């Protein structure tokens, strides 16, 4: 076996890279120590968002991805239903102080071409009848969408060779696995929060999601508190939470979001559960009586400047990175895969690759 490319990591980013490379006729093998979407990809909500991103390189990547997802999700060859839903996002301010910054943020996004529609509290309540009527501002984002990240990962990997093994090292022209050495033309590090093992400065940022018993039809959009954007951009190690509420096609409601830097410690903490519950109830008071039946958590891969790392490693010829997508991997996956494939095959890049380069400050370790 001598594939053109070995992709290490079978999460949504590895799958999107493998799919894009394979679509260009390259022989691709994907290796993961567990299975498809067994790490970060399955630990989120499957969001494809533009609403939470400031104008800049990440928003450009998000928009390119948002344009690619429907075609990928509905591709006949990918046959499987990935539960793609263009549900739209509703961002609300819950205090008088938060309303002006939310409006200003939406105005900047509109200027960048995002469909960010300011609506009144009455209109917001018409969209979400159970929403707290005390909200002070609301913006409706029609482009925000959601999918089932595990089904999407499995769908992208269709027809691509998969090996379950642990990769210990790589020199860019081969990978050493628990099952032996595989020589290849190039290696893509798509190991998410574990990417540091292959020389890039990516650390885990813990997140927890609560899942309620099914209450179909009660909540329709992804609804979140405007302070979420601040929490995403922060580099603070302490616990940060923000109210993020949405339903799934199964009728359960997913409640986030929390951010904590505590390594790979996966213990569930009651203070996180409390904070998430308080913020969810602040958005939807009726949730106070709805039971939570499970909680799950995962680790977002974050780089020091909160931008993804996509491109060749200047130190190791043949080694490429596609990681550091933090909590936005599902949303950024198709454009990441396309961009990586463009760069690797010498094509015209889909978006400007410069902001995502590996040799920017603080990334190489």
């Amino acid at each position: 076996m001598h594939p053109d490319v070995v992709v290490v990591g079978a999460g949504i980013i590895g799958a999107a890279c493998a799919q894009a490379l394979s679509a260009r006729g390259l022989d691709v093998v994907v290796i993961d120590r567990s299975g498809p979407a067994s790490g970060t990809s399955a630990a989120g909500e499957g969001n494809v968002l533009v609403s939470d991103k400031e104008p800049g390189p990440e928003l450009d990547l998000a928009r390119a991805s948002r344009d690619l997802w429907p075609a990928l999700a509905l591709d006949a060859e990918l046959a499987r239903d990935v539960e793609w839903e263009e549900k739209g996002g509703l961002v609300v301010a819950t205090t008088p102080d938060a309303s002006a910054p939310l409006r200003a943020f939406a105005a900047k996004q509109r200027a960048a071409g995002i469909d960010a529609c300011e609506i009144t509290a009455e209109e917001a309540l018409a969209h979400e009848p159970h929403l707290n009527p005390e909200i002070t501002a609301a913006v409706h984002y029609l482009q925000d969408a959601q999918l089932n990240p595990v089904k999407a990962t499995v769908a992208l990997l269709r027809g691509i060779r998969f090996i379950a093994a642990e990769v210990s090292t790589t020199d860019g022209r081969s990978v050493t696995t628990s099952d032996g050495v595989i020589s290849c033309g190039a290696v893509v590090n798509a190991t998410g929060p574990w990417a540091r093992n292959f020389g890039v400065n990516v650390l885990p940022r813990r997140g927890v999601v609560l899942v309620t018993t099914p209450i179909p039809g009660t909540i329709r959009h992804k609804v979140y508190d405007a302070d979420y954007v601040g929490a995403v951009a922060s580099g603070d190690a302490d616990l940060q939470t923000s109210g993020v509420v949405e339903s799934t096609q199964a009728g359960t409601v997913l409640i986030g979001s929390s951010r904590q830097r505590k390594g790979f410690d996966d213990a569930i903490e009651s203070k996180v559960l409390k904070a998430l519950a308080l913020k969810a109830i602040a958005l939807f008071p009726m949730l106070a009586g709805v039971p939570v039946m499970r909680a799950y958590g995962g680790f977002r891969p974050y780089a020091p400047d909160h931008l993804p790392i996509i491109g060749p490693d200047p130190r190791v010829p043949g080694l490429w990175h596609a990681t550091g997508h933090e909590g936005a991997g599902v949303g950024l996956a198709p454009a990441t895969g396309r961009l990586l494939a463009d760069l690797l095959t010498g094509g015209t890049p889909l978006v400007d690759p410069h902001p995502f380069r590996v040799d920017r400050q603080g990334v190489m370790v």
Partner: protein
Amino acid sequence: MRVVVVGAGPAGMAAARTAADAGAEVVMVDAEPDAGGQFLRGRARFSHPGVTHLKNAEAWLVENRTLHLRGPQQVHFDALVIATGAYDRPLPFPGWDGPGVITAGAAQALAKQGVTLAERVIVAGTGPFLLPVATALKDLGATLVGVYEASSPTRWLREPKAVLANRHKIAELARYRNVLTHLETRTAVIAKHGSRVTVAKLDRNWRPISHRTEHADLVCIGHGFLPRTDLVPNAKRTNDFLDVDERQQTSIANIYAAGEVTGIGGADLAEAEGVIAGAAAAQQEPPPQALAAVRKGRLFAQALARVHAVQPGWRTWLNPDTTVCRCERVSLADLTEATTMRELKLTSRVALGRCQGRICARNAAELTGVPFDGQRRVIAVPIPLGELARLPEEDS
């Protein structure tokens, strides 16, 4: 020194008494209104100096040295004893999710409250527990159509050591002589449509070799047990039962386990394990009699697990449209090809419903060949968000 015991069955009660006698302040947390657990439901009168018995108290999370209870309420501990027992494993077959099929454990719980549910009753599955269930139902006036044991009793012949060490267990069988005449081995219920029940003779792998029709209103099934280990999702386990050392300590320091959470071996073994766990939790040497009883009892428990192990042929009892997961209505045909349990769940929705896979996850794993990962559930019982919002600010 405070020892908190979760569960008030034979293991929990023994642990609580022993720890209190060793001088510890003991809190026994009981999800039921009365002590006794499943085995002694309503027949135990528990009162012991030094033990506070918290009734109707549901534990849902262990966080460092704090046990969280519904309410919300918190109990701090120096040592914790998990004695939460086990529940029946039902194997699916066409019609198992319809009316007139309940677990043997549920049937026994109702029988202990004097409730009869039907005229004509079948008890089916595997393991000696089927006999007391059948006896209880018969004593309440039900017509016992049959007691069907899927395994072959001749397997016990391969376990002479366990049998000799536990002769009293064989003597116990005499208590069930009224139902032994109804017992058929290598036999199973493999379908139920209305009152028509398909009863099959099985080969040694539990594959049907012939079948007949019986009529019954109620089928009570139990194909072994699954331990209730949700409070310690990170503790090491083997075949889903908690691993313990000779002092009943789990892989987590200061957390002990006793009774059916460590393996299925009956009330006397559970009680002996409770004595050891209670003593060790209170930092006292466990009594040698209890250690000897546990050694003997484990021989029996291990033999029991071998003789009554679920055999793979059960997977042929299902049709493609047979329900595997009742909460999310996932049938055999809906189960996807997957490498891990998580992938299987998130692509087919099996085990994602209200019971959180307690009933179906193990079965789904065996039906697909996906390795069963022991199901880590970090919230042991559903809790309203309003209650989570009232949790104390900082854990002390």
